Structures are given as structure tokens and as C-alpha cells.
């Protein structure tokens, strides 16, 4: 009997895993004695989705880039025939195979169960030591000991702030009140970041268990998971898991035979980025306009509904059961002096292997980009990584040896953030990249603080001028001036960090800004308004392909003779550049 497991995380589904699953369903139905079918969450290798595992006893083979047709081949060849289809294999037993180096340097704590079990099954979770940590905490530890263990582990808030978790819990625990609240911030909003989504989809129980432990530690019996509505699968998994846990008595009054009661509600966020900010998030749960309020009072003193409240994010909570079970020492053994444990990153952009990785703190950026992610696509030149999403900044290739550690990353002007990491090569325009992130923050500003509401728009207007080739020399000083004002005077993290992508790119890639402004040139040949497409007469063979594909018909020339682009009609769509088979069209 072989077991077929299809990766049904959102990444898998959007790559077509649904069809693969359907195909297997039919095949398994016809051969129910030979194979059984299951699904799991994201294992991280999003670049090879859809992924399918074939289990024979303890041995497993991971197939990548599956389709319904390939599924049939694999089923017939491997499941029925017993022969691996080497050409589709991504990994064998997670210890060899072409993608092995992707996992080689990773340490899975947060993602320990993702892709290794059926997230809908409490039993499978329990089989992987699930709900043992909460029982251990309830039976063997006092709340103070739990908090001490968090302090000892050195775990810091993974939502981006990096505040020591044990400290935060200590404050909340010290707050005296008849009611306290615990909130799991699952309002993951950074563009390109999907760490929390993958955890919630692939392993909802470890988050809930982490929350139970936190609730016990601080004395909160009511909890909310504030999850963005754009994560329907995560919301469904959480809701279903909570119902099952309630039915099982794992949630509710006196859980696991203790005197501790715990209830969890899922609250869907309507998609405002700023609601990831804790005070705005609480306002949103209360049904108010989601805008931040001044702190103090801090949530630990006066939070949700005016009661002491502790907020951590998904990844933070997912770490907690592991720490309780394996010991704070073991966790603290990983990482650097001030940054312990592991960190999950969502790798996007120009890396060869994009997806979810979890690495111990202390690796360098280069380790992640080259060792884990296999370097840059098409072996182009590595230019920079953007860390921390729209709040973060750019770290240039020259600083690729920077160690992943809260303090070291902050020194560069970027931030650790929640784990978004965009890898960029020499075709990425840094001005355009800054403009992209600023567009996002500008749209997501709640509008409360003057500098964020108006200042970010003014910065964006300047960047739009620059990428459109209308940049002026004074724009640079204006950007810096505005950036400093906004950073220094906004009330919440959104505004305080919004200028970071601009300021860091101006710091490390000022020459690119200057080229746009002074020479009306985009060095990465990316900004439409500043790029010119020209035909290389030597290389052009006159195949007419570009002329036929050009949407504005601005390419002329006889067959078998070099063609010519009429610049006045060109809309810089780049179609000719893409379709030319002879590299005869270049961007200048």
C-alpha cells in the first residue's frame, strides 16, 4: 500500500494541485487496494509546485511540477509499477535529490509539520507530539515558569518588532484585571509575504497550541485570531480546527483536566494593511475604524475592550510549543547572541528557488540567496535583497555577508520584518522598486497622521516623476527631507517605516536615482519612459517576428533585412525584446 500526498497549500492550489489531486482521486479509486490519497500543506518549495509525495513505508519520494498527465505517469510508473520516474523527482526521502540543497541548510521549527501531515487532522498533529507542550505546561509548569522559559529561549516577536516575547508576556501577566485577552495577529499584509499563511494552512494546531500556552502564562482565557479575509483556506482550517478542538474538550472550560479555561475566536480582517498594527487591529476587532492610537497606554495595560491584552503573531506562537517541549536551551542554542532560533522567510523575486525557507539566525544573506535558494535566475548578477516588505529596506549585494540577526539587519537600514525577502538582479530598477513599495504604503495609509497621509503621497509623486524621466535635482533632497519627517513623526509602524525602501535605495543606489534624473536613463532598463528599444543590425536576420508581434506596428523592415523601430510610436511594451530569437533587440 502506497500513500500519495498532494501539497494543497495555496501555492500548490494556484499552481494547479487541484487538478493533480482530482487525477489521483480517480486513479486511487480504481486501485483502492494499491494506494491511498491524502493532502498536506506547503513544504516550502513553492517553485516546484504542484508537489506530490509517494510514500512506501518510511521511504518517500517527492515529485515536482506535477500535472494531471504526469500524475498518471507517476501513478502507473511508480505507484503501480514500483519504479521512480527520475525525471520528475525533486527530492528523495528529503535527504537527496536535485533539490536537496534547498533543505540542507534549513532548520524546521516553525515549519516542522508543514507539508508533513494533514493539517485538518488533530490525530496526525498529536502523532507529531501535538498538544504535548500545553499539557506539559499545565501539569508541570507554573505560568511564571512558562514565561521564564520564553525569556530563556530568547524568542523575539516574529511579526517584525522583534520585542522579546517573554518580556511582553511578563507585562501582560503582571497586569491585574478580571479579564485579559490574547490576540494572534494573522493579518499578514506585506506584499509577497506568506509565511503566516503557510503555517496557518499547513499547521494550524501548533499556532493554537502556542496560544493556549501563552494564555495560560499571562492568565488570558479569551483569545482572538485576527486573520485577513484574503486567506480563506487559513480561516476555514482555523475555524474547523477550533470546532474540533472544542468537541474534543481541548478548548473550553478546564482544558486537559486543568483549572485553565481557554476559548479562541477567529475574526476576519477586511484587508487594511494598517490593521496589522496592534492598536489598529484591536480597534478593528472592536468594530471601530481601523486606525492606530497613541501608545501608551500599551495593550498590556489597556488593550482590547480596555482590558490587558497580549498580541503576538502566527510565527511567534508556532515556536512556543517546540520551545516548551524541547527546552529553551535547545532553542537558544540556535542563532546569534541576541537573535535566537530560526526565522522563516518568504523568498520571492529573481532567486532560482522561491518559496518558504526556515533558517537558523546567524546565516548570511548570501547563504540564503545562494546556498538555499540556488542563486539568481539565469545566473544574472545579484543586486540586492529587499527585506521587511514595504516597511523594510534594501540590502545591496555588497552587504550580502550581513548576518541574519535583528541588530545586524537594522544596521543596514532594512529591518528583519516579518520575513519577506525579495531577491533582485541587475534588471531590477531600484527607483521603480522603491516606487512600488511606496505605492503600497501610500494606498494603505489610514490617513490619520499628517505626515503619513500627505507626506507619503508627496514622496510617491516625486518618484513617479523620476521614473517618468521628469526628475529634478532637488527631488533627491526633497525625498530625503520628506522621508526623515515621515519616519520621525508618524504614530504607527506603517508611517514610521514607509520611507525605508526609498531611503535605503537612495543610500545604496544613489547612482541609479542620479542616472534617472541627470541622464534620463534607467540603468536597469526597466523604467518604460527611459528605455529605448533598438535593433542590432548585425544580429537582426529579418525574421519579421518582432514586426508581427508589435502591438503598435512600429517595427518596419523587409524580410531578411534588418528591421527598424519607429521610436515615436513605440510604447515600450518590450514585446519585441521578449520574442526576438536572435537577441537582436536591445534596451538602451
Amino acid at each position, binding site marked *: 500500500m502506497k500513500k500519495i500526498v498532494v501539497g494543497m497549500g495555496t501555492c500548490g492550489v494556484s499552481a494547479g494541485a487541484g487538478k493533480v489531486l482530482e487525477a489521483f482521486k480517480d486513479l486511487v479509486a480504481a486501485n483502492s487496494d494499491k494506494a491511498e490519497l491524502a493532502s498536506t500543506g506547503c513544504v516550502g518549495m513553492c517553485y516546484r509546485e504542484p508537489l506530490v509525495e509517494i510514500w512506501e513505508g518510511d521511504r518517500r519520494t517527492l515529485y515536482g511540477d506535477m500535472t494531471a498527465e504526469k500524475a498518471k505517469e507517476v501513478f502507473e510508473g511508480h505507484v503501480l509499477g514500483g519504479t521512480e520516474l527520475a525525471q520528475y523527482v525533486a527530492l528523495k526521502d528529503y535527504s537527496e535529490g536535485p533539490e536537496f540543497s534547498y533543505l540542507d541548510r534549513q532548520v524546521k521549527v516553525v515549519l516542522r509539520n508543514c507539508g508533513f501531515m494533514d493539517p485538518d487532522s488533530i490525530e496526525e498533529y498529536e502523532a507529531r507530539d501535538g498538544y504535548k507542550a500545553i499539557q506539559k505546561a499545565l501539569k508541570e509548569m507554573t505560568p511564571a515558569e512558562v514565561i521564564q522559559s520564553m525569556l530563556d529561549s530568547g524568542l523575539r516577536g516574529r511579526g517584525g518588532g522583534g520585542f522579546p516575547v517573554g518580556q511582553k508576556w511578563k507585562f501582560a501577566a503582571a497586569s491585574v484585571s478580571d479579564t485579559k485577552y490574547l490576540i494572534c495577529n494573522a493579518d499578514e499584509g506585506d506584499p509577497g509575504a506568506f509565511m503566516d499563511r503557510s503555517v496557518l494552512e499547513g499547521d494550524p494546531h501548533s499556532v493554537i497550541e502556542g496560544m493556549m500556552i501563552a494564555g495560560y502564562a499571562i492568565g488570558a482565557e479569551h483569545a482572538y485570531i485576527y486573520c485577513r479575509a484574503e486567506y480563506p483556506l487559513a480561516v476555514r482550517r482555523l475555524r474547523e480546527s477550533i470546532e474540533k478542538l472544542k468537541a474534543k474538550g481541548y478548548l473550553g472550560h478546564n482544558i486537559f483536566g486543568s483549572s485553565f479555561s481557554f476559548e479562541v475566536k477567529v475574526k476576519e480582517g477586511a484587508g487594511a494593511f494598517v490593521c496589522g498594527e496592534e492598536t489598529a487591529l484591536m480597534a478593528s476587532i472592536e468594530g471601530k475604524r481601523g486606525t492606530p492610537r497613541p501608545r501608551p497606554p500599551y495593550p498590556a495595560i489597556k488593550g482590547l475592550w480596555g482590558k490587558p491584552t497580549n498580541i503576538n503573531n502566527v510565527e511567534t506562537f508556532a515556536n512556543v510549543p517546540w520551545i516548551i517541549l524541547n527546552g529553551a536551551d535547545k532553542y537558544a542554542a540556535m542563532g546569534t547572541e541576541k537573535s535566537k532560533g530560526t526565522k522563516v522567510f518568504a523568498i520571492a523575486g529573481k532567486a532560482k528557488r522561491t518559496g518558504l525557507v526556515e533558517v537558523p539566525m546567524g546565516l548570511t544573506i548570501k547563504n540564503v540567496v545562494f546556498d538555499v535558494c540556488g542563486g539568481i535566475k539565469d545566473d544574472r548578477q545579484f543586486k540586492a535583497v529587499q527585506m521587511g516588505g514595504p516597511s523594510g529596506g534594501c540590502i545591496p549585494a555588497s552587504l550580502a555577508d550581513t548576518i541574519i540577526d535583528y541588530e545586524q539587519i537594522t544596521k543596514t537600514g532594512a529591518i528583519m520584518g516579518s520575513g519577506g525577502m525579495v531577491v533582485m538582479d541587475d534588471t531590477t530598477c531600484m527607483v521603480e522598486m522603491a516606487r512600488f513599495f511606496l505605492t503600497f504604503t501610500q494606498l494603505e495609509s489610514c*490617513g490619520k497622521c499628517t505626515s503619513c497621509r500627505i507626506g507619503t503621497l*508627496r514622496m510617491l509623486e516625486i518618484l513617479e516623476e523620476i521614473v517618468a524621466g521628469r526628475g529634478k535635482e532637488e527631488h533627491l533632497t526633497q525625498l530625503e527631507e520628506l522621508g526623515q519627517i515621515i519616519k520621525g*513623526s508618524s504614530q504607527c509602524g506603517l508611517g514610521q517605516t514607509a520611507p525605508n525602501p526609498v531611503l535605503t535605495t537612495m543610500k545604496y543606489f544613489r547612482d541609479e536615482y542620479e542616472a534617472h534624473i541627470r541622464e534620463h536613463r534607467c540603468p536597469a532598463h526597466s523604467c518604460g519612459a527611459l528605455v529605448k528599444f533598438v535593433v542590432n543590425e548585425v544580429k537582426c536576420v529579418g525574421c519579421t517576428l518582432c514586426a508581427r508581434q508589435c502591438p503598435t506596428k512600429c517595427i518596419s523592415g523587409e524580410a531578411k533585412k534588418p528591421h527598424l523601430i519607429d521610436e515615436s510610436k513605440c510604447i515600450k511594451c518590450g514585446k519585441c525584446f521578449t520574442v526576438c530569437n536572435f537577441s537582436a533587440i536591445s534596451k538602451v
Partner: protein
Amino acid sequence: MASVTFKLNGKEVVADNSKTILQVARDNGVDIPTLCYDPRLPPYGSCLVCVVEVRNMGRTLMSCTTPVGEGMDIWTDSESALKARKSALEMLLSNHYADCRGPCYVKCPANVDIQGYLAFANAGLYKEALDLIRETNPMPLSCGRVCVRYCEANCRRQDVDSPGAINFMKRYVADLEYDRLGTPEIVPSNGKKVAIVGGGPSGLTCGYYLRQQGFEVTILDMQPKLGGMLRYGIPEYRLPQAVLDKEVAQLVSGGIQVRTGAKLGVDFTLDSLKAEGFDAIYLALGSWVAKGMGLENENHPHILPGIVFLEGVKRNGPPELKGNVAIVGGGNTAIDAARTALRCGADKVTVLYRRTRTEMPADDIEVEDAIEEGVEFAYLTAPNKVVTEGDKLLGLECYLMELGEPDASGRRKPEKVKGSEFLFKADWVVSAIGQDQDLSGLKNQTLGEIKTTKWNSIEADPETLLTSVEGVFAGGDAMSGPAAAIDAIAAGGRAAKVIEKWFQTGKVEKFQAGFLSKRAVLEVPTSDFFVGYQKAERPEMPKLDRHERAKNWEEVDLGVTVDQVKAETNRCLSCGCNSVFDCDLKVFSGNYDVQQEHFKGKLKKHKMDDRHPYIILDANKCILCGRCVRYCGELINVSALGFIDRGYDTVVKPSLNKALADTTCISCGNCIEVCPTGAITFKANLEKPGPYRTAPYRSACSFCGVGCELDINHSGRDYFFVTAKPIDPFTEGELCAKGRFGTYYVGSKDRLANPSLKGKGKVDMGAAASALVAGLKGLKGEEILFLASPRISSETAFLFASLAKQFGSRNIFAAEDFGRAALPAAVASTLKQEAVEQADLIVTVGENALKENPVFAFKVRRAISAGAKLIHVGPADLAWKRLATCHLPCAAGEETQVLSALSGAVLKAGLQDAESVAKASNAAALQGFTFAPASELVERAAAFFQAATKPAVIVNRDASSGSELQWSGDLALLTGAGLLVVRNEANGQGFQDIVYGGFTSSDDLAKAQAALAAGAIKAVVLLGVDPAGLSCAEALAKVPFSAAMDLFATEATERADVLVPLTPIAEEDGSIVSFDGRIIKFKRAFKPLSGFDNVSFLGESLQAAGGAKLDLAGVRSAIAQQAPAYASLCAETPNVYLSGAAPKAFALATLPTEAQALAYGSATTFGRRWAQNNRLKPAK
């Protein structure tokens, strides 16, 4: 909370760390600007204007949200803080698409408040308009005729149809109202002497304003009469001598010394002025030298320099000019010379100008008038040579010209057409090609050298007008070169301000005009801006017949009509903001030297929303400080306004995007007051929005018994708005719709203004008083009925009652009480109304307990939002039901039974306050008393008293029968709760204490009611009573003699034998008492419309009836004698609370059927639990 030590601007300060930096700074007298902070609301932190530098943290922080911390090194005005503030303001202004002032004001050199005076003129307030003009331009009679009107050239109305005819309006109000100006006040001397050299518009203006500030001013002028160029350069038909004489006389009549015929350098010098003891000199010499044409023989006797020609006409009368007259030049002087030449008898007058009509600097209107009169124009013609034959002038040899490239002035340069010479025949030539200054009189002074420019004008700082010599200032043409009268007037005004400040501070400083937000800086209004305005062309100025007028010297312009003024002022687009006088954004922007264009970018433009009857919303001016939204939602509990959209698109709008009046808005107008800009403003009670500058006059609200003090802001009865009495320099108070907008009745045109007698009509006050006394004389006291509204002052009430007493009558009642079976017991509040905000349990009795008292209801709602439980007894509307923790419903009028049951339940559960009960003289009566049976719900309500440490019982005296009042008092006494007896009438408490406390009783009430019903009442005196609403109206109508005092006509005033206008509180000196016993003394905000107030009329009537003569002070001491609690009325003390006795006894009235009447004593001290727990500070 802990005490922390830190530094504030270098000084060590200790404060509680629960306070923010802003609060601590204010406590220490350090002002930090803020736009979004309101002390009554939680810190919000959006405007970023309040930032301060915390030096040891190396950053700036918002002071309104940051608590002070140990060791902080706070600098409120450091460079980085100022820079951050400036940036915040600049960002706000980059999206502030609004004009503080219209372009007319901005472009007027004298900054005349044009929009303001047009608004006054529109309302027919011509004197107010004239006064406003004269604040910055003291010569509207002359200027209204000769001004070059930069305002009109820049008027935005021209983008709709044609520019406003602003100057016509100025002339209209000046012509109409000038005689009412009278002689200016002779301001006592401040001991400083200023000499003004030159009595033209600049010198006159400077002298006038300085004299008004107390300076001893002497004007020296070389001409025989003052007026300068206005007199000697402007022809009679444009500015008649008589008009100018009137204006000059007005300006100098305030005590200015005048020395005419005194020429600088001949009759006096700067040195001699200094020797005479003048402390400052203002040089306004003008430009009196005509520039030559530079032609040979141009001093031929038939060639006259323009200004010499015009001056000659004025000084010596018109010369006889026969034949052809050629005028050379294209400026206003040339046109004046041409039209003057016509009037001197010339057969033909031709203006020779070297460019074309387009380039001609003369005013279009002047040119048009000249053409109408027959002046001819030869364009592109330039003289080259004077042609004579012997002594006789033949004419000028001229060239034809053509226009070449533009020159430095931007005009195309005329160039000679070769070979085009021709003879222009002329018997006379007037050369009017420009003027120059004669500065020879300034030379060789030991005082110092007055530097001059290359244009031979006096060199002076353009802002301060200071010359190179200390104490010597210069302005007008002599400093600027030949310019317009308004430029000279503006310079004179500026010089006066600079000189005044120089004497005050010792520094010569630029006069700060303040920051002005300008739409055009961000984006010049485009055509879509003007959509929606009806087209209406400007009026034509009526003029003398064109053929006739060229033969005489009569004034050509006849002046516009009143209808034209109304129509024309209606055309004003009112570009400026009516918050221009009190906008914080404007003030701060000026203080921080803000550049509006600094962060210029994409704009959000909004439509102004003026659909609400009293409130205008203009989102263009909104800075999203959220004060209105938060105040309306969190403190008023109404939430009529909210934020819509997010980020840059955020806008404050009425909820659900409705018109404000269609939301839950209660029209309290507190949003207007908290708005720091012009985004929410008062809708003027005149047609045009203003701006109208006002001054606040403290008064009291004349509606309900809450006793709100208010500021009536006005500059006259025709326009005013009402704001709450501020709590402190940083905090506004609050009002409801009645106080804020209801007070507009004071300005109503329908008010009764004159006393009158039936059959005789209008009489004076004395006659009315005599008639009143005559009507009552001879009647028995019980035959006379006095009814009053308790919305009158205590003083008025006392005199009214004294009048009744004088006639031996005890029939004096509040009109509403006259319908009652008995006067309600004098149960009084034991709690200050502010204290209710700290209550933890509130009992409200009766459906309408708080209906008439919104401002008090705000406080009750705030207490409930803060966690107080609410027990409501009686019917309730849905909103109040929702607020109630426990609603004990019953039909209206049955509240007594519920209160009885509740009291019984309290006793049964042992929740009575033993100490409070023990104080009641009849505590034993509780034993064995049968209370109404209590339901389970009532028992649950009673249980709330268990945990309550600060309970309060609220009942409305005017909306309840006597027994509800008594039962509420009993419940308060039983539970130790504070009692608040709310009243619907502004001075119900005072009326009760004074009138019911000494002049009448319930027995008298019963007798009077019977007498009226039996027709035994022979005379009735009504004070502010409209019988229409009373059950006894029919009986009143039959009373043979009636007198009525009222504000507006009613059926009673129509019928009255004696009718006397009533003065409202806004027009009186007096006092009222709030329902919680606070005496509020006030002074009149307006003069009484009738010319006399209630106290004078009633005092006179009393005297006529043989009583004592009582003025306000006399009345007050008489009140204090009768009611000792009112002693403070006589002292110059701030408002105080009445002092009174503690509650004495339970009334314990059983259910109405088996009434068990027991007196309930006046109770005016705090409830016991309150006294123990009250955290309020004692009243100041």
C-alpha cells in the same frame, strides 16, 4: 502613576508621569501649538504640530501623546521642533485648497477687507461697511472716485462674467454714510510728535492713523490746501473739490495741526523740524515735476507741462484754450489733461501716443469717457520737433511709429517709421509724459543724508519705509515714483503702523500681515470652479450726458443706486474664509513662516456643503484633526460626523454621506467651535458669509435651567454668533442648539421695539409706566393677576413681584405653574451638575427629564459611557431605553408608584444609607410605611444601590407633578444619592426662591385661579407670557385691563392696554440661577432694542406706584435681604453656588389617592455619599 523629574526648556520640573508633555508644558505656562488636541478628549496625535524635541533621546516627539518621563530633556522651541512643526503645517497646507482672503484683498495695496464691506453693504449695513473700509483706507470718498482698482482687475468674478464693481460700492457707502462719521474722537496725546511733509493721500493717511493712536501730528504742505495730487492733479469733474474738502476736513479734525503754504527747503527743513522737537518725520512729497519731452523749444508758452496745466486749472481757474490742442502721452494725466482741455474750450483735443491703445497705461474707463466726450486719439504717433512760425506755435512734427520687440517692461518698443514725418497742427500742446520728484529740499541737512535712487526717488526700505536717516520715513510717489492714490494711501497706513511700533518697541520692524492661504499657490481655479454661478453682468455707472458734460465741470459719475448695490454685492463670490479672524492653522502658519507651496502636489477638492441651516462644512479646509468627529461621537454621543475613506482620500463627512441636518445631528454647533480651521463654520444670519469681525460679550443662555454662560460675538445686532464660555484658554465650552442658534431671536427684525398704549400708539417708557400704574390703581390686590415667564432675570422677577406687592396683590406666578393644582414643593438640587459625570448609578425619572436640557444630558450620557449604570423610571424613547441598564417602564404620571416601590425595595433589601436617613427629622416615619409593591424588576433595580458609591437621582421639576418630585427627593434621601432637580426655564430656581419664597403661596394660587374663573380678576399684567399656550387663555382674554411686556407680538400684546417691549437676557444686566443653584451674573451684550431694560421700566413703574426707587444695585440688595443665599449678588465676586440647608424630612407621600402631605425642606447641599466620594474640586 509616579512623580518624575525632567527638564522643560532647561528648567527642572517635577510632574506626574500620567501627564503628557503638552499638559505639563501648559501647566508651566509654556504654550505648545496644536491643532488636534482637545483636553476633553483622549490624545489623538494626528496633526503633528505639537512636536517637541527630547534632546537626550535624540528625536522629536508628539507632546500631546507622550507622557513625561524621568530625566527627559524637553525643548519646546528647539530648531528641530520648529522645523518639524513647519513641515507638518506645510504638508497640511499643500492640501488646503482654500483662500484665507480673496484676491481682491491680497492685491489691494491697503488690504481693504473688500469681501467684508461688500457683505455689510449687501445687508444694508452701509455705515458698518464704511467703518470697515476706513480701518485701512481712510479716504473712501476720494478713493471711491479715482481708484485704479487693482481689486477689480484681480476679481475672480471675471471668470464667471465680469469683475465686481467694487469701487462703485465703496463710493456708494462713502457718499451715503460719510456725514454720520462725525468728528473723530480727539485721542489724548501720547507725547510723541510726528511731522508729515506733504498733505496728499499718503501724508493724510499716515497722519490720520497716527493721530488716532495719540501721536501729535503736524502736516506741512507747500500748497494752499491739503489733498496733494488728489486736489491739484485730479480734475474737478472726477473728484469735486467739495468732496475732497469734506474728506480732508474729517481726517484732520481729530486734532492734526496743519501748516499749508510751507515748502520744504524754503519755509522749513528737516533740521528745523528736528529742532522743533518732532520725534519722527514722514516724507510724502509726491511727484510734482513734469518730465520734459526733450524737444527744442518745448518751453514755448503754448506748450504746457501736464501737471502744471492741471494744477493751474485748480489754483487759477480754467484758461481759455482755443483751437486744436494736442496732448502728448498715454497715462492718466494725459487723459485728465485732454478732458480738462475740452472743458477749457478747446475746439479739438487729440491725444498723441507712441504705442497703441493696448499698451496705453491710462485706465480703460477714463479712456472710454474721454472718447465719449469727443477726445481724439492718434496712436503710433511721436513728436519729434516743435514747429513754430515766429512766436506762434504751429504744431508738432511727428513720426509715425511701429512696434518692435518687447522691451524691459514687456511692452513692444515703438520705433520710428523712416520718412513718415508730418506736421501735427496744434495751437496748444500739453506734454503729459511723466512726472518726477523735486527732492532739492532734502539736501544739506545735518540730520543726515537722505539717500535717493537712480530714478530720483527717496530710497527707503520697501517694508518699513525707513530712509537712510533714523526717524525719517518716506512713502507715496516721492518714494515709489508716480503711482496710484491707493498705493500712496497704503504707504501712509504702513508708515503709521511702523512708526507706532517703533515708538512702542524701539525697533523698526516690518508690519506683519500674517499668513494667507491662497488657492492660486496650489492651483489657479479652473473653469470647473466657476460652474454653478449664475451669470450677471456688473452695473454701469450712471453718468452725465456725454455731450453736455464736456462743457462743464460737474462730476461725471453720478453714483450707483441702492438696487445696483444689492445686485452687485450679491455677485461677490466670497472667495475668502469666514474663519479668517480665528483660524489656528492661519495663525500657526504665520508664526512658523510656512511656505504653502513647499509640498505642493496632488490636490483633493471638495464641494462646500451649506445645506444645514446653521452650519457650513467645507472639506477643502479640513485638516483631519478629527476634533469634530471625536467630540460629536465621544462627548456628545451623537456621531453625526465621521471619517470616510482612507489615506489621502480621507474626508470628514456627515454620517452615511447624508446632509448634516438629515443625520442624528442635534445642531449643537460644538463641532464649529472645536474646528481649528474654517472647515466647519457658522452660517451667517446675513445673506453673505462675511467675514464679519466680532468681539465676544459674555452673557447667559435664556432657555433652559442648565445655566450655560455664553459669548455673544458681534459687532452690532445685525450679525452675531454664539460660542460657549471657554473653560480655559485652550478649551472651548459646550452648548446646545438652543443657546447657540436659538439666541438668534435677539436679532430678529420682528422684535417689539416701542412701548405703546391702546388707542394712543407709540409712547415713551415713562408714559407706559404711568399708564400701567393708572390701570391698576384703585383695584384691590386680589383683583390683579401677575403672570411671568421664569426666563427673566432674578432682578426683573423681584421688581415684578415688588410691583404686585405694591398693589397689595399676592397673585404672582410663573405662567406654567398657574395651571397646576398646587405649587410644587421647593425641592432643590443637592448636587452640582458637573458632578454627574462621576456618578456610578443614575436614576432618571419621567420621559422628559432631560429633553429640554441637552447640555446636561451630554454629561449624563458621558457618565453612562464611562460606566455608570442607568435606572430609568417612566416611559422612554428608544435611545434612552437602550442606554438604560434597567428600565422600569410605566405610563406617564405613574412614576410615583414605581418610585415608591423602588424606595420600598431599597429598604427591604437594607440598602438605605443609614447616615443619610438618620439626618431626616422624620426618619421614624419610614417604619411601617406602606410602599407600593415591588416587582422582581424593581427589586433588581434596587440592588444596584448595593455597589453604588456615587448615585444620583435626576427629576425634572417642570415636567413632573409635585409628587414625583417629592418621591425623587425621598429616594435620594433614602439612598444618600445626590439629587438633581432639572428645570426647563432659565431662571426657574431664582423665580422660585425669590417670588415663591416671599410673595405668594399655594393657597394664593388656588384663590387666584378661582378668582379668574369667576371673572373677579380686573387686571392682568403679563411678563413674557404668551397666553396662547395656557389653559386659562380664554379667561385672561376677558380681563378688562391688561398690560403685556414681551419680545414679540402675541394675542396678549395685540390686546394689551399697555404694551412694553421686554428686554431679553442678552440686553440686560442681571442674574439667573441654574437648576443646581449657581448664580450667574451677566452684563448686557447688546444695548436694549427699546432703549430701556426691564429693570428701568419696572423700577419706574414701582416708583410711580409709590414704591421705593430701585436701580439694579438696589434690587440686588433687596433680594439679598429677603433671601440671604443671594448675598453674593451684591458683591463683585465671580458666580457662586447658593448655600442652603440639608434635607430635613421624608415627604413619604403615598400613592396619589391617599396623599400624605409632608413638607420637604429645601435641600441644597451635596448628598452624603457624594460628599464623601466627590472628587470634584470645590467651585472657584
